[in-house]
């Protein structure tokens, strides 16, 4: 599987991650090489194999539906990039 410039741009957009213009070719090469390594999987017949989602085949634990967390808003907002009136600030979304 070989990826080109437009594939990288599309993937980077899906990941909401800016990539440097002059690095796109490099990523295309690197990612194509990694997918080349991954392609070894294609040689294996797996039609009758069940996928393994968890190493211990464990069921998800349930807990009682009660409040266990305390309010720590101040501590959490103290490390935020931008806060005003107890709200996290981001650029205006609606004009």
């Amino acid at each position, binding site marked *: 599987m070989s*990826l080109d410039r437009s594939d990288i741009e599309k993937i980077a957009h899906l990941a909401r991650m800016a990539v440097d213009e002059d690095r796109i070719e490099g990523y295309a090469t690197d990612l194509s090489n990694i997918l080349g390594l991954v392609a070894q999987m294609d040689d294996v017949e797996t039609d009758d194999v069940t996928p393994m989602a968890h*190493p*211990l085949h464990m069921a998800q634990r349930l807990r009682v539906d009660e409040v266990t967390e305390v309010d720590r808003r101040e501590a*959490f907002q103290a490390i935020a990039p931008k806060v005003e009136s107890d709200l996290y600030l981001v650029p205006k979304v609606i004009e």
Partner: protein
Amino acid sequence: MHNKTIAELGAGLRAGEFSSVELTRHFLERIDSLDEGLNCYITVTPDVALQAAEAADQRISAGYAGPLAGIPIAQKDIFCTQGVKTSCGSRMLDSFISPYDATVVERLNAAGVVMLGKANMDEFAMGSSNETSFYGPVRNPWDRERVPGGSSGGSAALVAARLAVAATGTDTGGSIRQPAALCGITGLKPTYGRVSRYGMIAFASSLDQGGPMTRSAEDAALMLQAMAGFDAKDSTSAEEPLPDFSAGLNDSLQGLKIGLPKEYFGEGLDAGVAASVEAAIEEYRKLGAQVVEISLPNTHLAVPTYYVVAPAECSSNLSRFDGVRYGYRCEDPRDLEDLYKRSRGEGFGEEVKRRIMIGTYALSAGYYDAYYLKAQKIRHLISDDFKAAFEQVDVILGPSTPSTAFGLGEKADDPVTMYLNDIYTIAANLAGLPGMSVPVAPVEGMPVGLQLIGNYFAEAKLLNVAHKLQQATDWHKLAPEGY
């Protein structure tokens, strides 16, 4: 003082030969004079350390202190530490002061350890050489022109250089065992779910596991005892009883069945490393173990499978870093999308970006079956190989890495070559099994690691097998010159 083990230092502390404050100062001075040439620590925390040391001294003199009380250790910078910067080796979290403690940190603190600081690591634990850290590479104390391995490279190098008695590490594809091997220390990756992942910054959640990095198996048992155990805050924490990991250390190995996977001794293994592993196998024969050849036929598929599973989970986990609530935010974002894109683009390094993109691609519409589902199926085959092997043998033994430490920069430009460095360690993560690296005879002055893989929750057996070798040989006592 810095050459002593946890057990020896604990005895000295309880006998009043020295105090934890004195011990802590000694290590802080060593960090001050020696770490500049190694770059093992991202953050040194002398105030936190001395406060903990004073508290430990009080507990010790009051007579109710456990084996870790007053022992200076380092925490890998992937573990959240309340009030202390927790960077995960990334620009993204350069400004992140954690508002809470990871369960591992909480438990070790409750056991009375003294945290000297936060250890350097590959960015978000993605790397095998510690060269992807935002804070610069760590150098190997055995040869500063070589890498210490990764991603727990700072932890391994600082334990080897005696800049702490022990450290924590995490292992997603070999990140405890590979650097332990390259730096000549003992490292244990427990069974998946044995050690809580709460507050351990997530990379690939179905593979990540924390564990101890120490200078002996005896010390690893003491560290693991404090770190392990069920935690309701981790949804995949195992509800398994916790044995006394030190109780069986001296059990006889008479009749122990050791399996050597033929796939771990084939092409690509350095001849010197093979000879060192052979010498250790000979020691095990002398100790009464039976050695048999086994086969793990899907071994060659471990690295390809891992490079779908790990990036897929990483792309999902790292989507939380969006520049909104904590971490790095770009300057003057035009709109919300620009804020996301540039914060992530500027906050993440090259290797992290590569893996996010591979994962995003593998999980994108139309590709799920071909990549992630296929990988999960092969993961089952790899796991079944081990299941069959453990019907014949008690432990599996092989090399931890194909070669000794490589040069700084040597593999940094070629991700695929770098990935193949974890060829012997990755399968244990995919299967969720415990694995350990123990130092054996060095090759041309560089450390070599012997890997032991055990059955689920058989950490005590691994520690016993490692300890007996360390009782019969002195390889684990070798120290790098100048440290």
